[in-house]
């Protein structure tokens, strides 16, 4: 089975996100005054081919934990889409 993983990696809530803060200030400067709490993360997509969905899920989990996210400063979540 072929899947596409849509992975979101975000800075942990407890941490200051200077990039999000700067973007927030930029949006305010545009006059978009209803916006707050901007946080900037990463979106990663990848494809994989495995026998089962459970296997695909396990492999993406491992990829996130071992390389794509650093769990000391980031959290991750992902969706699997069957192709």
């Amino acid at each position, binding site marked *: 089975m072929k899947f596409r993983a849509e992975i979101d990696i975000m800075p942990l809530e407890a*941490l*200051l996100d*200077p*990039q999000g803060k*700067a973007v927030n200030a930029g949006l305010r400067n545009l006059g978009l005054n209803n916006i707050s709490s901007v946080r900037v993360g990463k979106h990663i997509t990848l494809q994989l081919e495995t026998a089962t969905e459970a296997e695909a899920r396990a492999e993406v989990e491992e990829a996130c934990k071992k*390389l*794509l996210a*650093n769990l*000391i*400063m980031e959290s991750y979540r992902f969706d699997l889409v069957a192709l």
Partner: protein
Amino acid sequence: MKFGVVVFPGSNCDRDTLYAFGDLLGAETVALWHKDTDLKGVDFVVLPGGFSYGDYLRSGAIARFSPIMDAVINHANRGGYVLGICNGFQILTEAKLVPGVLLHNESRKFISKNIYIKAATTNSLLTNQLEPQQALKIPIAHGEGNYYIGTDGLKSLQDNDQILFHYCDENGNVTAEANPNGALLNIAGVTNKNRNVFGMMPHPERASDPVLGNTDGLKILESILQTVG
């Protein structure tokens, strides 16, 4: 003692580091290519500063999986010495050889300037020849040097005397104003529990040659050689 400096694609302080240990301090040195898997018999491994793999994904995240890193990790786990400077420190945190992580500078700016640090402990290979109250002028050059660790990790660092350096002002006062990047408690360098792996953001190798008018960094490198020769 033989020193090996790992050269990753994007390292840019490898030559400076080889020069400081070899030419200035007279130690035996060798460059280690990141694709090799053999440490060429070195006793002390240095991961130099730079932008390994273009800092893609996170600083140090890809370099941590370079072929030579298995040998470096085994060396460290056997008690061998490893020092990571700047990007080298980032690689060590990604490899989990030292605790914590280096976030983007609070200002979001890349900072390249001289700052001051002082030893937080003299119980380490890097700091045992230093005066604990003496401020050392050392350059930093990084965008991600904001040291962070969770509450439990910080307690463990403190309980085990693992903090090596604090950012301070020129009189040795550890203040918020003297903190260039937002690092937790002004932490500029740490060691692991076994005290054989060291990470620091400032560049002692760039403050070693008298020609450059500042040799404060040499005191840190000399501290290593005077202890283990």
